């Protein structure tokens, strides 16, 4: 069963949502769903004590991802 929610976003936030929907070919619902999955999967890793790193394309920089 699916449930409905209303989301209040700023102009900038809504612009970002619409831009990503366009890029990804997803509806707003699908985009939020995927974002939540990604957020949760990263958060689960943090909860287990794992660390997440982001590496630049040329591998010259590597930064630890921090989630507030």
């Amino acid at each position: 069963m699916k449930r409905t929610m209303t989301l209040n976003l700023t102009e900038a936030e809504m612009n970002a949502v619409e831009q990503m929907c366009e890029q990804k070919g997803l509806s707003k619902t699908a985009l939020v769903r995927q974002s939540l999955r990604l957020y949760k999967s990263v958060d689960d890793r943090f909860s287990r004590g794992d660390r997440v790193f982001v590496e630049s394309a040329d591998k010259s920089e590597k930064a630890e991802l921090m989630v507030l």
Partner: protein
Amino acid sequence: MKQLVDQVLLKNRVTGEFEVAELCHGIDETNLSHIEGRWRPMFELRRAQAKASGESMSDINAEDGHWNWGSKVLAAISDPFLYDIFALECGGNTQALLLTCKGSTDCFSRHPEHPKADMVYVEFLATAPWNRPRLVAEPIYKGAGRVLIGTAVSLSLGEEFGGRIGLHSLLGSEKFYRDAIGMTDLGVDVDGPHKGLRYFELPESQVTDFLTIQH
């Protein structure tokens, strides 16, 4: 919780007749008991026979026969946010299982047609041992694997991923994914968690063909 999703037809190769199979979202203790009590003994018997005759697990189509299905399934059930599990039942038996993921690092396409696009990743797909050519002399049901690949494609469509799916194949199944399903062979992973396994994708451009061609 197990829910009936659809009814499909599977061809019984022994009788030549089509039989109604039930596709379920989720599995229950009955499915697990089939796997432990019916699948596993058959795999173990054939593995022992193969070992004695010098055949590889790939030769007998049983590379996944040692998998701990129960633990994989329980891990999936505990995280319904990311995983979906499906069972195909026919003739009072579990004929095939599918586990998919829709939100991990494996869920981004590598296909040149749509790099990094979201997709459904097939964690595992397994058919019952008695349905496998090479594992048994007279396999029973034909088409169980194809039905479950179609299920993954449907899930991908429902998630607005365009029907895109990806998976890593065991050696003995590569031909099935490449030739029978029409997936794109994107080579063998040289590192990472799937190192040594060949990676396949069904790109969006092939989804319509896959869904419309009669097999």
